[in-house]
Structure formats: structure tokens, C-alpha cells
């Protein structure tokens, strides 16, 4: 096909006007410089990347540059970027935008990301890539600005929806695209209705549960590439999760998806150094902890509430008090007044927190930035107070903070204070790779939460070995969890992202509920041990399976 040749003739009139009016004419030197400027910016080849040479201050990794090249040259600008967590998908996306902009193939870009990440994207694009991206704040931004970052939830609402449909985007980028796996959702249909000349879908977990998820993801990008829904299931499906013609599907998917894996990047990953502490309660704490069972024995609370209370008591008496007080208000009768009086009396006698003392000792010893994660807001407040009392400054961090408050706290932690006390890892939250010490002050019962916590510091850009300190109170539910489950499945050593794969593969998305049930239904410690053992063997078995034969279509590129 012969290319169409088009001459831009819009300049003719202004040239004729100058000839007729005898000027104004440019200076000779500026005329030469204009030509020189254009000559320097000339891109003489279809192939190769120009962008890295224009980003001298950005340290790019080989796999990131190669990914950008593959996406542009071999996938023609429509791709799923599915690197494992922490390998820099945002950087790859930024590099691709930059390359397209330099070459003049892309002008208008729409970037849809989770609301909590909007400003982070804007900052990264501005500072690392000199890409003038703006967050969508006012309706006029859609039409006035070329590169807009927004959340899908905002974008799909009126009046934004209609304005967006009128724009002519050259490139659409969607972060956390695995959330679009269900084609019946409004979000999916919204993305589907966008015109996609070039399009990047970013996800760390391209296939979570069902085969159809990858079908719908690819169909967003290239409708028809995997056939229509009917022919897809005929050709590749045998049961919900099993695949037939696997090699063929894998080969097809790998032509629209880049997945870099940690082990393939050849990068040096900092080591994880894990230390677990079995911390004995003080006498008063022990008495308080034990007396909680009396509530159950007297029929005031259900086994489930007892478990909650015990876990809270392992964290701090403050955390337990919040729940106790609630139960007291709703169940107190003159009959059990004595029981409650006794219990609060024991709570009041707790005058120190064994874990807090240990944390203080560690922080002093580490003498560097430390992140403390706790499950409870009351513990967070207590710890801040406690540390302050011991002349250690700290800042709080919670998932509920607004974006700029999060950024502010992160800044303070990076530049001013030694300790950050966080209640929520926020799977898609902040990056804290400038710190390398993390204390798990109490242990969440969902192992994914642990992974997310560690992922905040164990990521690209972390230059030191990562130290993880796990606190468990001796002889409590917490130490069971730590010793009988987490240590057995090597949770703390896990590569980020693997656990998710394992759990979804054995349909064990809600481990926390499983674990709760084990504790509630077991009659003895022995029974708990057996059941937790079973659980960890299942997880370990699946893990070995995945290691020996990675049967995901997502296992690598081509």
C-alpha cells in the first residue's frame, strides 16, 4: 500500500503576508538555530528508543527499556504490562508515553488509576519523565490538558463521561487493570467504550481465578484476538479453571502481554532478614488476657468475639478496651456487673505493654528509620504516645488519610522523624523504600496483608537489606498463628506476588476466615495445631506445584 502524502500548507498565507508587507523577517542567526533545533530533534529511524537518552537523571533497568521497546515495536502499542509487583510498571508506562510523545505519535493521553494513586502518578510523570500530566480536578481539565490522570470512578460519572467520549485520545493507560476482569461491570463497559489507538493495561496479577478473566482483559485491548466468548471457551476451556490447548493460548497471550519476573531481571534484590520475637506478657497483662475467657464462660460473648478480644489484648489493652467497652454497654446487667467490674479492674492494673517495651528497645538499637504496623487504631495512638514519652518522634499513617495527608506524613517520615506507625498497608498505598526496618507489631490473619506490608519497603529502589521483626505474644492465639502457620509457609520470605497466585489457585482467598474458624471450633490446643498444620501443608503443596511447573499463561514473554 502506497502511503498517502500530505503537505501542510497552513503556513503559506503568513509567508505571503510577510512578502507583501515587507516583513517582519527573522534574524539570520535565529533562522539557522530554528533549523538546527529541528535537526537535533529529528528521529531518523522507526526502531530503537529515543527516550532513555533524554532522561539522564532516571536510572532505568534493562528489563524496563526492553519492555518499552517490545510494546512499541512488536506489540504496536497495545499491550498488557504484567510485571511482578515492584519491578516498575509505572516506569515502563512512563517510558512508553515519553517515547511516543518525542516521536510525535501521541499527544492526548488518558490515564485511569485507583483514586489513591492519582497524585503519585502525576508526580512520577512530572518529575521523572518531564511529562506535563495533571490530575483531573475540574471538568475543563479533560479538554484543556493533554495528559490527564483520573480515577475510573470519576471518569465514568457524568458530566465527565460525556466530555471524555468527545475527546480524541491517542493513548489510554489503565492501572490495576485486573479490576476489569468482569465484563458486566460498569467500569469494564466504560473502558470498552473508549477509543483505543494505543492502549496499556497494567496489572500484577493478570490471571487470578478464571480463564475467562484473561479473555475479557485481552478483548478490551484487541477485540477478537482470542476469538469471541463462545469460540474462546470452546477452544481453551475445560472446566472453570482448567485449560486445554494451553501452549497455543500461552503463545497467543504472550504476544500481547509482557511479564517480567524477578528472577529474570538479573537485578540484585536486597535480602530479607527475618527475626521473630516471642514476647512474654507481664503478669498483669497475662491475668487480664486470661480473664477474658470468663466472658465466654458466663455466656456474655460468643467464641468469635472472644477471639477478637484476645487478638486485641495481644496488641494493647487500649485496643481491647475499645471493644470491651462496646460489649459492656450493650450487655451489662446488674447480674454480671461484678464480672465486668473485675475485668476492668484487671485491665486497669495493666501498667505496661510488653511489646511496646520491646519495640522501644529495638528502635533504639536500630537507630534508623522504622515502620511499625499494627492492626488497631487504639494501639497506633498508644504507641505514638508511648514513643513520645520516651523521646522518639513518630508520625501516624492510616489508609483513611486523604492523599495529601499521606504524602505529608511520608515526607515527614522521610526527612524528619524516626518512626512511622501505620494501621494499614494499603495494598496500593505508599512506597517507603527509603526505610528498611519493619516491625509487625501484631499479626493480621490474612497473610496477604503481611505481603502488602513488606511490599512497601521491599521493592525496586531499596538499597539495603530489609529487616522484618515479628512480634507475637507468648502462649496466645498470636503465637499459634506465627509458629504454626506463617513460619511454616515461609510467609515472610515469600516473593511478593507469589502468595496471591497460590491462594487464588486453591480458592483460599479468605484465609483469615479459615483461621478464625479453626480457633473457634477447636476444643484444644492440639486440635488447633493439627488444623493449622493441614492448612499450611495445602499452601506449601500448591507452592511447590507452582515452582516446578508454572502453568500460567503468564509465565514469561515469548
Amino acid at each position, binding site marked *: 500500500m*502506497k502511503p498517502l502524502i500530505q503537505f501542510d500548507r497552513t503556513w503559506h498565507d503568513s509567508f505571503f503576508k510577510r512578502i507583501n508587507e515587507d516583513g517582519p523577517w527573522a*534574524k*539570520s*542567526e535565529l533562522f539557522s538555530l530554528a533549523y538546527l533545533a529541528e535537526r537535533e530533534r529529528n528521529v531518523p529511524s522507526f526502531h530503537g528508543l529515543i527516550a532513555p537518552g533524554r532522561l539522564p537523571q532516571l536510572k532505568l533497568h534493562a528489563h524496563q527499556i526492553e519492555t518499552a521497546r517490545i510494546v512499541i515495536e512488536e506489540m504496536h502499542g497495545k499491550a498488557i504490562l504484567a510485571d511482578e509487583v515492584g519491578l516498575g510498571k509505572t516506569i515502563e508506562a512512563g517510558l512508553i508515553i515519553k517515547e511516543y510523545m518525542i516521536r*510525535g505519535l501521541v499527544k492526548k493521553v488518558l490515564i485511569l488509576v485507583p483514586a489513591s494513586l492519582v497524585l503519585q502518578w502525576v508526580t512520577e510523570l512530572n518529575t521523572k519523565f*518531564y511529562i506535563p500530566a495533571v490530575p483531573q480536578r475540574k471538568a475543563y481539565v479533560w479538554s484543556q490538558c493533554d495528559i490527564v490522570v483520573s480515577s475510573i470512578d470519576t471518569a465514568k460519572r457524568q458530566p465527565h463521561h460525556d466530555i471524555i467520549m468527545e475527546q480524541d485520545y491517542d493513548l489510554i493507560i489503565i492501572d490495576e487493570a485486573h479490576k476489569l476482569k468482569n465484563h458486566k461491570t460498569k467500569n469494564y463497559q466504560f473502558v470498552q467504550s473508549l477509543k483505543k489507538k494505543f492502549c496499556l493495561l497494567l496489572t500484577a496479577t493478570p490471571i487470578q481465578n478464571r480463564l475467562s478473566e484473561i479473555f475479557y482483559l485481552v*478483548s478490551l485491548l484487541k477485540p477478537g484476538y482470542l*476469538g469471541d466468548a463462545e469460540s474462546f471457551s470452546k477452544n481453551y476451556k475445560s472446566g472453570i479453571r482448567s485449560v486445554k490447548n494451553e501452549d497455543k493460548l500461552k503463545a497467543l497471550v504472550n504476544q500481547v502481554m509482557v511479564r517480567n519476573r524477578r528472577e529474570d531481571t538479573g537485578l540484585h534484590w536486597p535480602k530479607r532478614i527475618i527475626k521473630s520475637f516471642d514476647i512474654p506478657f507481664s503478669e498483669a497483662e497475662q491475668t487480664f488476657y486470661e480473664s477474658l475467657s470468663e466472658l465466654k464462660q458466663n455466656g456474655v460473648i460468643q467464641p468469635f468475639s472472644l477471639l477478637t478480644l484476645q487478638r486485641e489484648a495481644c496488641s494493647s489493652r487500649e485496643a481491647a478496651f475499645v471493644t470491651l467497652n462496646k460489649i459492656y454497654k450493650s450487655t451489662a446487667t446488674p447480674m454480671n456487673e461484678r464480672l465486668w467490674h473485675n475485668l476492668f479492674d484487671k485491665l486497669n492494673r495493666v501498667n505496661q505493654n510488653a511489646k511496646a517495651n520491646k519495640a522501644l528497645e529495638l528502635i533504639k538499637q536500630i537507630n534508623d528509620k522504622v515502620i511499625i504496623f499494627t492492626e488497631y487504631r487504639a494501639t497506633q495512638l498508644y504507641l505514638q504516645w508511648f514513643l513520645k514519652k520516651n523521646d522518639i518522634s513518630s508520625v501516624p499513617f492510616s489508609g483513611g488519610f486523604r492523599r495529601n495527608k499521606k504524602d505529608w506524613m511520608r515526607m515527614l517520615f522521610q526527612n524528619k522523624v524516626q518512626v512511622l506507625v501505620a494501621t494499614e498497608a494499603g495494598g496500593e498505598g505508599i512506597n517507603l523504600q527509603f526505610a528498611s526496618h519493619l516491625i509487625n507489631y501484631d499479626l493480621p490473619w490474612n497473610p496477604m496483608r503481611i505481603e502488602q506490608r513488606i511490599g512497601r519497603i521491599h521493592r525496586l529502589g531499596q538499597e539495603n537489606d530489609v529487616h522484618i521483626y515479628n512480634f507475637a505474644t507468648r502462649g496466645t492465639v498470636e503465637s499459634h498463628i506465627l509458629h504454626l502457620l506463617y513460619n511454616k509457609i515461609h510467609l515472610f520470605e515469600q516473593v511478593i506476588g507469589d502468595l496471591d497466585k497460590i491462594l487464588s489457585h486453591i480458592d483460599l482467598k479468605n484465609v483469615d476466615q479459615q483461621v478464625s474458624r479453626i480457633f473457634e471450633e477447636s476444643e484444644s490446643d492440639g486440635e488447633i495445631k493439627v488444623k493449622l498444620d493441614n492448612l499450611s501443608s495445602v499452601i506449601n503443596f500448591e507452592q511447590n506445584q507452582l515452582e516446578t511447573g508454572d502453568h500460567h499463561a503468564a509465565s514469561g514473554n515469548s
Partner: protein
Amino acid sequence: MQQAEIRDFLIRFFSSSDCSLLPVQNQSQLKVKLTKQMDKLLMNRPFYWHYIEQIGADAETATLTFRFNDQSDEGEFIHFGSPRLHQIFNTAEQMGRYIRLYQVVSSQASPALEPWLGINMKISYQCDLKKDRLISIGLQMVNGTLIEGFQSMLGKLELIARLPDYCYTLSPLITVKSGIQRIERFIASELETEPFEWADQASERWKKDEDLLDAFYEQAEKKPERYNQEKKALEEQYKPRINVRLINAGLFYLQSSTFMPQFIKDR
């Protein structure tokens, strides 16, 4: 572009636009006091200028300090990727778009200067990929002689903005308008003869994706709006095309012996 070349470019740019270069301690810095015009073009502060002009006060133009190495001394780090440099490139292109120049000739030479139309253009080959090349063409407007590489020839000549006192210009037989047409026709015919495998390959990719799209919606009795939209998107993504746009253009009055016959492309 190397840092030294960038420095050289900036010095030429600011001196030729009447800004004053201020003394600096070493070569890794450049300090420049902007003129009012350049301040307006580079500093992006329309409200300040509006205010100053309303109250008629004396304006304080900005001083820019650039540094050419990455270390943390004073000033704005400038390199080939920095937005500031590209802003300056764009400004240079804007200010250097149209020109008229006369050659300075020795007194023994013929005082007659021939009129030339010179055009610098950027040719972009675009499908889902893109590359460019520059072309610089001069057309003698009396006899239609056409040469390529005109801009680099001009670089070797002494040119000034006003007709030298003892010279006169020959009247063109070709109008500027038809001159431009001749140049466009020449470029087009040259492009026609170039190999176009790149365009064939892009068309193949286009066809392949379009077939997939058709198959995807084959069952649908009435094709949804999405289908047409995807189709349009594929066209924009892959359709091979060559765009030619102006960099700058000018009228040049040159001595007739300036160009040797081997440079002549067309007559």
C-alpha cells in the same frame, strides 16, 4: 546533543535575541538576563506583564541561570531532555520562521543578485511507528534551478538583511506561489520513488487486526457503535502516511556563481 553543543546553542540563541549574558565563575554555568520579549516568551507570567503594563511601571525581567552538569551547584540543570531546552527550541523555531537575506559580494563581482526561494521541511513517515527526515530545498526563481541541501550552502555564505548598496536584484519569472508548488511536486515525486515496505508491513498489521475485529463482531446482527470506533482506531494506529511540514522558509538573493552545477537537482 552534547552538553557543550547545548551550551553553544543557548549562547547563540540568547545573544541573537538581544539578551545579555552575565559573567559566571566557570564554564559549567550560563547566566542570562532576559529582554522583555524573551521574558514574555519563556517565563509564562502573563499576569505580571499585564499588571506592569497597566500601571506603567518599569519591569524587572527575569535572570535565568543554567548549569550543564548534574552536580548541585546553583541554577537549572539543562540537558537534552529538559523541558526548558525544548521550550527554547520551540521559541527559536517560532522566531526563525520566515526570512529575507542578501548575499554580500566583493566589489569586483557582478552586482546582480538572483532571487531564490529556500524552504526547510520535515518529512514524517508514520504508521504505528514513526521516523523523520529533514529536507532543505532552494529554487532559483528566474530559471527554475532546484537544489537540495540548500541550508548547509547558506551556512557558508555571508548574508545580511538589507540589499548591499552597490547591488540590485533580478526580477523573478516564477512567483513564490508556484515556486512552492514546484518544490512540493519535487518532494512528492522523490517520495514516490522511495521504497515503501514499511507501509506494506503496516497495512498487513492493520488488515490482520481488522480481520480479528470483524470476526469478533461477526455474530452480531447489528454492529454496535464500538465496532466502528475500533475500526477507526485501527486506521489511526496503522494507516501509513507521509506528512510534510514547514520548518522555515525564506527569500534569498544570491550571486549567480554561488552554486556549482553538481548540486542541481532539477531545472
